[in-house]
């Protein structure tokens, strides 16, 4: 089957029991998406499917035909001239607010934050916490993550009518 990850089409085996998480990590070497529990309880494996957040550990790779998948590796844009990566506003905000300690939850947190801002450009703290309640940061950087998502909202590209 064919699968679209970060705008690149890959032809992969669709073993029935395979999860999107192991496909990304072990076959496509996109290891930014993390295993945390394999049970959809921690959010470390969060990716975007057609712009909406999904637990890749609970998503069957075989169901991904025709869908666009975005992982943490696909968030940054590249400058057309210099090819330098330009970080997504949520990535920049995580750096600015130092919203991490060990960093293991960070990719999943960022993907959840991006998914929220994709549909709500002005979330208040309650909306951020509501949207990210399923992501665990065992180091306890939650207040910094909320601050980062709030800050990133200001820098999200907006369509001007």
């Amino acid at each position, binding site marked *: 089957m064919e699968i679209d990850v970060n705008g690149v089409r890959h032809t992969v085996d669709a*073993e029935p*029991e*395979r999860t999107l998480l*192991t496909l990304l*990590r*072990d076959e496509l070497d996109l*290891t*930014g998406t*993390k*295993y*945390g*529990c394999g*049970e*959809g*309880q*921690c*959010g*470390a494996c969060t990716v975007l*499917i*057609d712009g909406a*957040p*999904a*637990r890749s550990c*609970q998503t*069957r790779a075989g*169901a991904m035909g025709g*869908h666009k998948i975005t*992982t*943490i*590796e696909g968030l*940054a844009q590249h400058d057309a001239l210099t090819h330098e990566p330009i*970080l997504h506003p949520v*990535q920049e905000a*995580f*750096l600015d607010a*130092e919203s*991490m*300690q*060990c*960093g*293991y*939850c*960070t990719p999943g947190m960022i993907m*959840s934050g991006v*998914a*929220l801002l994709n549909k709500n450009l002005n979330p208040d703290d309650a909306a951020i916490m*509501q*949207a*990210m*309640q*399923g*992501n*665990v940061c*065992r*180091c*306890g*950087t*939650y207040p910094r*993550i*909320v601050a980062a998502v709030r800050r990133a909202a200001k820098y999200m590209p907006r369509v001007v009518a």
Partner: protein
Amino acid sequence: MTTFEPERYELLAGPAYNFPLDRRGFFKSLGGGIVVASFLAQADAQESGGGRRGGQSAPKEISAWLHIDRNGAVTAYTGKVEVGQNARTSLTQAVAEELGAPMSAIEMVMGDTERTPFDMGTFGSMTTPQMIPQLRKAAAAARKLLPEGDWKSIDFSKIDESLNGVTAGTMKPTAQWTVLGTSPKKVHGRDMVTGRHQYTSDIKVPGMLYGRILRAERFKAKLVSLDASAAKAMPGVTVVEDGNFAGVVAPTPAAASNALAALKAEWNAPPQTSSKTLYSDLRKTQGNGRGGTETGSVEKAMAEADKKLERTYTVAYIAHAPLEPRAAVASWSGDKLTVWTGTQRPFGVRSELAQSFHIPEENIRVIMPDTGSGYGGKHTGEAAIEAARLAKSAGKPVKLVWSREEEFTWAYFRPAGVIDVRGAVDKNGRLTAWEFHNYNSGTSAINTLYDVPNKKIEFHPVDAPLRSGSYRGLAGTANHFARECHMDELATLTGVEPLEFRMRNLKDDRFKAVLQAAANRFGWGKGSFGIAGGFEKGSYVATCAEVRVEPGRPPRVIRVVQAYECGAVVNPDQLRNQNEGAVIMGLGGALFESIRFDNGKILNPHFAQYRVPRFRDVPNIEIVLVDRKDLPPAGAGETPIMTLAPAIANAIYAATGERLRSMPLLPGAEVQSAPSGSFLTPAGRKRSGRRHGCQRGTHECARHNHPSVANCPC
């Protein structure tokens, strides 16, 4: 003061260290440029009593070294590791400070047994007080060997290699700091936000296969029989059997899981106890406790006391639950072994591997990539040994990543404990007697800093039901919980306001200063407030908490102010980050974290059953840093977790009149409802009523092959 052996747990085995390369050979191996090494006095090398060296003693030992190449690139080598506590950045700051080099010119090589000096391990909050000065002295010495002037003006191609030295320079006075004491961003932060940073579980080496381990049904079980015929028939699968050890190796993780599921094993385990009888089991201690020397006479003081109190406090077993489970990649080349693994003790793991495989330590290289946290939970090398055993039979490199259930079951736990406290006060509200017996949980912070003429403090080791080990702060949390709750109870008994009661019984000015700093910022007074303070590992901490109690709901922590003093502050923003994180992690142990077990099985080995703090549990948190530039910096990874629980318990008493003496404080709240569906469940859509596994708090509908419940008709 009563003295105790420091807590050691699994830290008993110190390797017989032999420096792998002679110094001259090592310096040459780095190529051109200059090298400066700094020696650590043996006394300092001992981690607060951890790691006995079994008679091996060198008068001096290299603790860190620094290499400056002919392009001006600086590499600093230390055996310390990064597990989220920001050591990589703070150590880079230390080198930059003394060298006058920009942080971007400096790379830290950490926790690699072949490239870095021996280090006992990263625990005990020792990186800041021990390694920062060592690196600063080396950097200061190196700076003296270089031409004067701005870093950019130095022509490194002309530096004199004969200057190589083993020496120590003089550290800058704190008042002259320009890099230390500031808050530069995490040096590898960009790799973390882009997914580029490679944790152990992300490493792939050529030809690598994937392993899984057959786990016993119960603790202490013996493997009676194993039928591996079905697994062996699977393509590319190797089954490894070695005594009680069994595992599989396969070309993909899914194939390994299938092979594991095809193993048919019979186990035999002795009957074992249950968490239901935990606290009575923990009292079944044998012999006398440790410490136990008495100052004055507690009996006499109790008999003569105006007011006295006797109470018991308990703490449950809890799990570290690092988000990155234990993982290792092992690769053999003949009888030489290389292992990448997330551990706080790479050299300790090297010793474990040497013992397990009966090969010399010189044949083993352990590399520790910056790891998805540890909290004291990754001192041991289980995954490394297992991966190496599998790789040995498979003849190929093997990666092993523990599942969440394995991490919750086969790692070790923070010890549970029972603590009996007796205290007495005179009519002026001054302590006259203090007796403290800790069963099993440990000795960290067991002594009281309060001024009391008659005291007896004792630790009672117990043959405990679960495998236990280090945890952020060790027993500091349990001992502070019992002590600071009991102080509160005594304050109530004497009718003295809790902060005033503590101040009245304290002579230690640093302790008083953090209590006052927390109280001032909090707006201490009457309300649903609680306060607690303490000292451990060179740092003072005080916490004020406010709770909200509503009918029919468990009390909720809504506000925390924590004051922290660890000498001169090295990186203020990261010190706040550590304090905030410790408060949030501490909320779990204080309110709802608890490992339940029965007859050799863990009953709640999943995040759905073992509740950890999430976004909506977090109160408003404010951290007050008391910066003592006149004192050397102490660590801050652990002590910030110790006083939250008693502050909350005391606040709940203030709000309700009910004294809670058992951690977690809110039994019944241990299991959360499934993580809010919010982004798992589209807005306005009810979670109930969906079928086919779509209710599992997950995103996909397994039955209908839809990528998301949003699109699923079920």
